[in-house]
């Protein structure tokens, strides 16, 4: 489902030294309607990131000439706040923390599914210009008040468990965007491991039973092979 070109098109810079992966990524991003530039090493990546007006940087951790963390560090040092996602073969919790400390905004260990990368990049891009910090999130007739913790749909008010509230809050903050199971596990539960079971799906179906059951128009959608999205059926 290609995003609305005028609305959601992103300019991406992919800094990756493996030519094949880079080409694959660029092609995949272009197919869903984004603009993707390529840089083959850290120095080139740095100068392109400084010059170009990008929405998101996708940076490989290990690069020739200048490593990925150093590229981000230098950009941040110069006041460039372009969201950056780090791709790395090092998938351990410590490496992730190092990456985030260096100024990265998200961290994805290799190998990854493109759907996962795309979902994360779209969320990052929204973060840059997004009015994400409003106190009330609205999707269709569903309303979530972040201060009073009230969730209503039409005239009906729901009683949510604290975790269900946070789950819905995260989904609504990224309304219209795909969020993956891993993203939910990381951001709602703060776990960074990969459960062998469909534990997230169960939580989603509970939430769905509360907010969608008995309404004509479902808001919480399952996106096959990727994750979930909350949106009003008609844009």
């Amino acid at each position, binding site marked *: 489902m290609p995003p609305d070109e005028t609305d959601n098109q992103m300019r991406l810079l992919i800094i990756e030294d493996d030519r094949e992966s880079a080409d694959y990524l660029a092609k995949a991003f272009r197919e869903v309607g984004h603009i993707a530039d390529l840089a083959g090493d850290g120095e080139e990546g740095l100068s392109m990131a400084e010059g170009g007006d990008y929405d998101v940087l996708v940076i490989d951790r290990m690069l020739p000439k200048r490593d990925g963390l150093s590229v981000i560090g230098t950009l941040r040092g110069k006041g460039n706040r372009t969201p950056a996602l780090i791709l790395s073969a090092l998938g351990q*919790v*410590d490496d992730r923390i190092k990456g985030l400390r260096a100024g990265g905004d998200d961290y994805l*260990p290799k190998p990854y599914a493109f759907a996962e990368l795309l979902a994360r990049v779209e969320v990052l891009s929204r973060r840059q210009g997004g009015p994400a910090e409003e106190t009330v999130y609205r999707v269709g007739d569903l309303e979530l008040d972040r201060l009073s913790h009230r969730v209503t749909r039409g005239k009906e008010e729901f009683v949510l468990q604290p*975790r269900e509230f946070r789950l819905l809050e995260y989904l609504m903050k990224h309304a219209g965007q795909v969020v993956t199971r891993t993203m939910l596990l990381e951001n709602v*539960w703060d*776990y960074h491991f990969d459960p*062998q079971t469909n*534990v997230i799906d*169960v*939580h989603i179906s509970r939430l769905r039973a509360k907010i969608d059951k008995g309404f004509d128009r479902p808001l919480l959608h399952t996106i096959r092979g990727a994750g979930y999205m909350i949106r009003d059926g008609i844009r």
Partner: protein
Amino acid sequence: MTAFGKLIRTTAFRLTLVYLLLFALFAASMLGFFAWNTRRMITEQITTTVNADISDLTALFDRRGVRGLLYAIENRALRPDANLYLVVTPSGQAVAGNVGALPRGLMATTGWVETIYQRLEEQDRGPHNALVRISVLSNGFRLLVGRDLEERRRIFGIVARAAQWSILVVVVLGLAGGVFVGRRVLRRIDAMTGTTRRIMEGDLSERLPVGRSGDELDRLADNLNLMLERIEALMAGLKEVSDNIAHDLKTPLTRLRNRAEDALATSRDEADYRAALERTIEESDALIRTFNALLMIARAESGQGGAAEDFDVADVAGGIHELYEPLAEDNGLTLHVEAVPARLRGNRELVSQALANLVENAIKYGKPAAPDADPDATPDAKPDATPRPILIEVRRDGDHVLLGVTDHGPGIPEADRKRATERFVRLEASRTQPGSGLGLSLAQAVAKLHRGELRLEDAAPGLRATLAFPALSGEGWAERSMQPETHPA
């Protein structure tokens, strides 16, 4: 390098040389001080005796005149061990005394002088040294009283010889000691070097020789041996992991390849291709998960625990309970938590994951058989409506923190419990369930990383899997893994 060259280069030998020099200097200065003092004392004694004699004789001369003096001198000169006496007239004619010859012109001087002389009765022998005092009497006669210095010379000689001998003895003993200690140290170091070389050549089972004395070299050897044991264990673990990875990833990789090949050969339309590709992606995702789990186990087993932090195990239990509670309910089970606060230092994320694995197992194997399930898969499970509780428990037992998960499933037969934690081992009963066969291995590796263990017990009926951590095991853990870090946020 020659054996001698090696010997004199040892620290022990060089230290010996330094001490040798110091002790020799010390001995020499002691003896020198002693000799100088003795000499001074003897000289003082001579001076006193001679002065007394002179004043005595002068008084005698004053009372009895020359004759009395000469008589007294002849008398005194004949005594054994007599002083030296000589009386000369103003013209220089010797008139009394026991001195035979003196250097020319000596009697013309007065006061103290050290000189050579010959005794009257020993004209044939060589000259001696003496300390003499010459004074002038009132009639112009000159009186010499003195003392032979032979004694002083002899004592000096004794001291000098003592000095020579003692320095010689010090040097010889010191060198011998140095050689002995040096060779001893060298032999042990050579033995260590030999062993290390063999180890470097690849025989990791070698160990350094450790003596019984418990000295610094033994302690060093002991520590090096511990280090070698750890390295050997790590190497063995690495080899095992790579063997397992090679073995267990090849099977699914082959299956993946075969399916792709088959799809290429037999697919007729796009739907066929699509289905084949989707299966391929699913399989590769499973492969990636297995690979990640293996890596994590290997890292935990090799003691790389990542950042250490203080956390409450009860929080971990609460978090996992919260995450899995709906899943358990969907499977016709209930999940409870009973926890007391129990602090632990280590990797919270890994402990959470270990607990998650145990809970997933409990949900998988502790659930009642669904009506449509293969009745052979879970033979003891009766389709009943009452939810079967799974309990997550945090307890303190002495100095251990116990994090346990108890289910009411079929459990694991005692004979299989040991095998259950091995990598990729999937017991008969679990073959029908999805899973990688790594869950318990990871839980065990995490327990070991925190110096604890994974216990599998019979909960009659069911299984109790417990992660037992030594309370505050963290101190040692943090040291041997990584520098403690605090997580952001």
